[in-house]
């Protein structure tokens, strides 16, 4: 088992009232899974993904990732953990506009303290794998949305994470580009990468091996 959530709840205080975002979530993921999280707007999909990705905290419950109790870890350990094992893909790609494709890809490696020659090798490999060698010196704004998302995925993958977290990865793309991205994910999954995606689209959910439906912060 890669990770497990037990009775996880999250809420915020607003104007003296407690607003529940996640209610009593129980949920596990095995290595090699391709899971789709679905649900209407405001049902807590992104919040759940952020909790799994350790970008957000929760108020109650337990979260185990690779046999480590995340809720007991200190901030620094937690960030080491997700740095090492997770990659993020965002709906609006979130590439840094001032950096070229190559430099964007290199960035996670910098934070993981790879040395210069390792970084070069890994960037070359991933450019090759995603067939974007010719685009390496372009800036994100010079690419189409599909191409930008491809770079986004490449960046998430570059440090060989165990888990990819994708928040509506095709939300800003047209259907053809979307299909290509989903095919990429399918291919990666075949190679053994675990993927959790949040999606609105039934069609995209089909690519996954398991679907989790959320409504008002609870799994239904």
């Amino acid at each position, binding site marked *: 088992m890669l990770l497990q959530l037990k009775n996880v709840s999250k809420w915020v205080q607003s104007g003296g009232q407690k607003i529940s975002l996640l209610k009593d979530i129980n949920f596990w993921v095995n290595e090699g899974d391709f899971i789709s999280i679905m649900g209407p707007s405001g049902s807590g999909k992104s919040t759940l993904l952020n909790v799994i990705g350790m*970008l*957000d905290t929760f108020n109650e419950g337990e979260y185990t990732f690779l046999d480590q109790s995340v809720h007991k870890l200190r901030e620094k350990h937690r*960030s080491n953990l*997700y740095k090492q094992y997770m990659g*993020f893909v965002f709906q*609006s790609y*979130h590439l*840094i506009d001032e950096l070229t494709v190559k430099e964007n890809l290199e960035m996670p490696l910098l*934070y993981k303290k790879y040395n210069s020659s390792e970084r070069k090798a890994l960037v070359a490999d991933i450019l090759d794998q995603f067939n974007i060698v010719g685009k390496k010196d372009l800036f994100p704004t010079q690419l189409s949305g599909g191409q930008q998302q491809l770079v986004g995925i490449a960046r998430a993958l570059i440090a060989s994470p165990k888990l990819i977290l994708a928040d509506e990865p095709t939300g800003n793309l047209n259907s053809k580009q979307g299909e290509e991205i989903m095919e990429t994910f399918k291919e990666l999954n075949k190679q053994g990468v675990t993927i959790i995606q949040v999606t609105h689209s039934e069609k995209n959910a089909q690519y996954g091996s398991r679907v989790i439906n959320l409504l008002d912060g609870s799994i239904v």
Partner: protein
Amino acid sequence: MLKHHLILYMRSIKKYKIPFIINIIGLSTALTCSILIYLWVSDELHVDKFHKHQNQIFHLMETLDFADEKSVSPHTSGIIIPLLVEEMPEIEQATRVAKYPKNASIFVEDKTIKADGYYVGKTFFDIFSFPIIEGNKNTIWTNTNSILLSESLAKNLFGTTQNAIGKTIDFQKKKKYVVSGIFKDVPTKSSENFDFVLSYEERILVQPNLMEWGSSGTYAYLKMKPETDVVAFNLKIKDFIKQKTNNDQIYRTPFLKKYSDEYLYGNYKDGIQTGGRITYVKLFSIIALFILIIACINFMNLSTAKVSRRLKEIGIKKAIGASKKTLVFQYLTEAVVLAFMALFLAMIFVLLLLPEFNQITGKQLTITLDSTLLIALLSITLFTGLLSGSYPALYLSGFKPATILKGKLNTSVGELWTRKGLVIIQYTISIILIVSVLVIYKQIEFIQNKNLGYSKEQVIHFDREGKTLDNNYIHTFLSALKKVPGVVNASCTRNRMTGNSWEVGGFDWEGKDPNDYTQFEHMIAYYDLIEMLNIDVLQGRAFSENFKSENTKVIFNEAAINHMNLKDPVGKTISFWGKQKEIVGVVKNFHFQSLHEDIKPMLISFWPDRLSKFMVKIEKGREKEAIANLNTFYKEYNPNFLFDYSFLDENYQKLYLSEQRIAKLSRYFAVLAILISCLGLFGLVSFTAERRKKEVGIRKVLGDSSAHISFLLSKEFVKLVLVAICLGLPISYVLTNSWLSGFAYNAGTSIWYFLTAGAFVLIITILTVSTQTIIAANRNPVEALKDE
């Protein structure tokens, strides 16, 4: 990693040029200012500190305790030193110094040069570190007719310093001296300034009364044994003069003051040390720090104002695995890099401005890239970079990635108030500076136009030397002088008209209080002087050739008559230095000192021996011609001597040199403060416009006009500036009044200065703010309302 930060920063500069330009202008201006002030302050702090024994050197000063006022005199009488040295074992060495009373004319073969000099005691060069480069230090004073020259004076006279020793120079065509040594030029970091030295014994020969207790023409310096307790020593010598004079001079209390402290701590009021140049050193250091902090605040305001465009980057980086430390490091790097770019620009500005700055401050500052300066520059720059980077770095890196990737960002009330508070401070300082500039300007104008009670215009003066030293020749000389074309009138005096020259006691008059030790200014006048300077004679007459034995007559000013409380003074007799003198006239009070001082009692006497300056009134509009004629005349009537003159009104201006310097400097600082404050406001306005983007969008969609929105956005800042005006005006009122109270005669303040300053600042604010608010109000609301 560093490379990555730098690449990212350079590209973002390219993309967002305006904030970069504002930041770099603000920071480089502030750095320029700080570097200039640093150079000045460091120079000031080092004046007189180069003497090897500076910790042991003390100046013997005297507190003069008169009935109605206490003052401190830097002079003493020549006799006190030998007595002190004999009786006080704490003294290691001592020297007496008398200043040569005027510019001396020195003749070597066919050359004539005018130079300043001192008479000094034999240990002078042991106590003070003015190195002797030619001649043997032990034998320089073997002969009484020895003279030592500065390196550059020797070069001017002989072309070289090599063979100057043993050469004879003709001094004032009166006496010959033999060069016994050459000393290195007095450094600019010395408050003393002399080109030659003669022995103090020589001075006593000319002026034996220096050794009398009542005289005060000598400066005395002591080198104390190490670890002497000066406080205890001062107590010990407290009554020294009283005892030695059998209670004759009971009002004089000698005390020691550390020589190297005198330059910075040289002001006394009522006998108590009250600041001096150190006040300006502190003031300008604070101003430099303020300007630097204001510029840093601007950087912070701008960085946090433009936060939304960086939020995405921060979110991504955090999600990808950047630690808080990495981000803090990145933003600090950016700020420091910017600070160094600003330093580069600032250095260029400094090099360009240095000549002008030197002129204003009257210094000879240079940039020599030694280790001290480099360390100072690096620390100033790092301080600026780290200070301005700290807040954005901590503020930006503290966000939670999940929140900012959603695009939500709430600004706390505290943060907003911090920014507002900073703006209020900036503007308060600006207003204070503007009011000060106006008041200083008005006061200087007042000084220049003030009726002094005598007319200083078109009057030149020059020393009495050469043939004119003969009392019988003065008359011939003046008669011929008056005939020179362009000359209106001519006379002779001892006084400079621009400060005390000779304060004397020793009066006795009918009904005098025996405890009254008040000193009178002693003016020596020749015939025609009072008429030439347009000094009003209220009663009696001025000195005139038509009367005999004028040297037994005296004239007083009103202040003196009031002090002596004499009714119908003309015709009465008083006693002065034991001789009976008849009062022949009373003149109206006139300002013979700076306007900082009240007019003091003055005695005018006729005493040809003591005349030392010729004064010549020349015709208006013919100044150049008259001076050329005088030059020719002088060559004929006083051969061999240089016609070296100065204008009385220029000397008068020099009295207010430090006020004029402050005036100029504060003008620059006021401009800078306003400029930097406007930049700050610009930053804050753009921040607010950004924060209220959505509100503006909604208002526009609902049909509000751009003008009204612009007004709405501007209102907030105009309020801040109004608060600053309310704070700044009373503060500046207090400050300027306390500055003006240093002048016994001042122009006062007027409500208009305050209104002008307030209005000026308000207009500048509205202009700055509206540039931004108009842009914000005219944005397409669709852009603002679109969710990313």
